[in-house]
């Protein structure tokens, strides 16, 4: 719970990203995919904020918007460097280059995110080179130091990515992200492509680094058990919108949105004797280019009532520090049991 009281490092206000759908010879716009549709949250300095949701919910897009790998359609992104607030959403190319120094990204796919034609030295050293460290020997020293920090053999400087395993490659990606001493790291499904055992190693590495360097993480994932392990607060996304946001323990104690309940019940439990009563959602994720009227979740929601199909629920603070987007957030008694509401499960502090 460390970070929530600190001063914010990042403020995201009503962030939107709409992708136009173009068709035909003249590429005229026939519709819009609302990948991110009004997302608002703060990141406190030193916290780890987990952003979860199924594929297509827009969580990756949020991460990319914050780093301006994509340009937002509208909305505000403010980032604090020292005491100075910067408007990331409106930054021009020059300002963006300096702003990307304290904000870095760890990618999901350790195979696609490392250029196969470059050695570890070139990969990890590139941000250093581009931000003014022209001296090769100096750069090599720094890269060795970074490799050491992420648990790689610093002698492997001249190796190419093909010589490393998935976990090792992800460590190279982490070293690259750390090269410029950032304060914010967007980890986009940083462990999803790895084996479970390797996942744990990389997660522990990320936590150690956070403690040592006072890093702030935006940790994007689809696996709630991973998020619980590393996050202080969690935001749940559904079809481009946040549906619930609170501290990690609270969400595991009493979720306030039916979608969160369904996500929690889908967490696999490594116990073969357990009879599962999962909350199985009907139907498909809503189409972000054509979301249903009212609450976007209502066609799949087991608790939906007539009102849900007509009225769009407001984003509101159900109790202090606990936000949800549901008409019945106050009254619903939702379960937080992985594998379904079966046995008593005491939440473990993450």
């Amino acid at each position, binding site marked *: 719970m460390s970070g929530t009281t600190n001063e914010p490092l990042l403020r995201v206000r009503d962030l939107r990203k709409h992708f136009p759908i173009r068709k035909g010879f003249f590429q005229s716009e026939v519709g819009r995919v609302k990948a991110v549709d009004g997302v608002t949250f703060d990141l406190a300095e030193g916290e780890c904020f987990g952003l979860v949701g199924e594929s297509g919910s827009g969580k990756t897009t949020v991460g*990319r918007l914050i780093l301006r790998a994509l340009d937002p359609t509208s909305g505000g992104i403010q980032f604090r460097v020292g005491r100075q607030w910067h408007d990331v959403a409106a930054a021009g190319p020059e300002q963006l280059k300096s702003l*990307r*120094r304290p904000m870095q*990204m760890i*990618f999901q*796919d350790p195979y696609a995110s490392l250029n*196969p034609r470059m050695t570890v030295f070139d990969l990890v050293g590139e*941000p250093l080179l581009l931000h003014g460290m022209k001296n090769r020997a100096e750069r090599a020293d720094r890269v060795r130091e970074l490799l050491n920090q992420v648990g790689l053999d610093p002698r*492997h400087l001249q190796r*190419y990515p093909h010589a490393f395993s998935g976990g090792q490659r992800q460590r190279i990606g982490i070293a690259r992200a750390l090269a410029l001493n950032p304060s914010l790291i967007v980890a986009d499904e940083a462990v999803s492509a790895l084996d479970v055992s390797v996942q744990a190693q990389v997660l522990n590495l990320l936590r150690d680094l956070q403690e040592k360097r006072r890093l702030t993480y935006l940790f994007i994932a689809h696996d709630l058990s991973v998020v619980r392990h590393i996050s202080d607060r969690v935001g749940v996304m559904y079809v481009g919108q946040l549906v619930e946001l609170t501290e990690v323990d609270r969400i595991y104690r009493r979720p306030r949105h039916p979608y969160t309940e369904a996500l929690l019940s889908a967490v696999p439990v490594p116990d073969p004797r357990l009879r599962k009563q999962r909350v199985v959602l009907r139907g498909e994720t809503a189409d972000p280019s054509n979301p249903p009227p009212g609450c976007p979740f209502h066609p799949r929601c087991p608790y939906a009532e007539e009102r849900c199909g007509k009225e769009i629920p407001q984003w509101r603070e159900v109790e202090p520090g606990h936000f949800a987007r549901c008409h019945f957030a106050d009254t619903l008694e939702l379960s937080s049991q992985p594998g379904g509401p079966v046995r008593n499960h005491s939440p473990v502090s993450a």
Partner: protein
Amino acid sequence: MAAKPKQDLSTASQWRLMAIKFRKHRPAVWAGMLVLCLYGIAAFCEFLAPHTQQYRDIDKAYAPPQVVRFISSDGIHLRPFVYGLEGFRDPQTHRKVYVEDREARHVIRFFVRGEPYRLWGVIPWDRHLFGLEGDATVHLLGTDSLGRDMLSRIFYGTRISLTIGLIGVGLTFVLGLVIGAISGFFSGWVDNIIQRLIEVIMSFPNIPLWMALAAALPTTWTPLQVYLGITVVLSLVSWTGLARQVRGKILSLREEDFATAATLCGAGPARVMFRHLLPSFSSHIIVSLTLALPTMILAETALSFLGLGLRPPVTSWGVLLIEAQNVQALASHPWLLSPVVFVVITVLAFNFVGDGLRDAADPYSK
């Protein structure tokens, strides 16, 4: 870091990995050597050819190929030799007929002095790789209607045909890369226009398009100008395929994580393009260029054969084949078709090399 082979591999660059893999592809390696030999012929054709381009001996018109022998009635000889040819007219058909003169045994000598020439048009010399002593002549692939040595002409033609392929592919490369990169990088309406243009060019039937373009070359041009004109014609038609490949690659690679990562590290668009995107498909470009070369050579041959490409006195394989257009001449003098063998061998060799490169270029293929 001991120099163990395994560690060598892990620090090997993409090009080294490619070379290692290419070497395992036996047919490609052999074909590669063959291609090198052919370019060797092209480079040193004055020296390798037993006769110069000016050589003609009208008394030896349509002489058949002479056979290199080691065995005569005297027994086995260590040095290869040919028998002289005695030509006379058939009293009935008035055709020139040649018979071997078993008395005249000419030993083939190497590095023999012969007709003087200028190597690459510059260095004066008179040594030839092989030839006969004195005035006797050797025609290993026979002669044509004017008594010119086929083998020498093919060697000279190799120079023209193979370099026209190289220069043409070079031009294709520049056109395809630039236009394709523009198309892929800027996308939007620029991309749309370029792609429609490519479709139009691709939908023209090749031969009539070549013919139209070749007919536009002024007849007053010197052979060198015509030569360059033809390469331009060939590459104007053939850049489209490469442009599409480059566009597709750039479109997909632009969205790759490593391109995003580079941007986030502070790299500008130019650095992303040339340091990250281009190197990751340069091997593919090389492969498609290798596979484009034989097409280029075939196109030149076809154009010249139709009389639309290079014209005598320039010698190319296609020009040589003009003589083979006459069915009657061909029936009685089949050796006029020998340039075809060179064309086929060259095209096959390039295709094998291209296949080998393609397999080697993909580091993750099995």
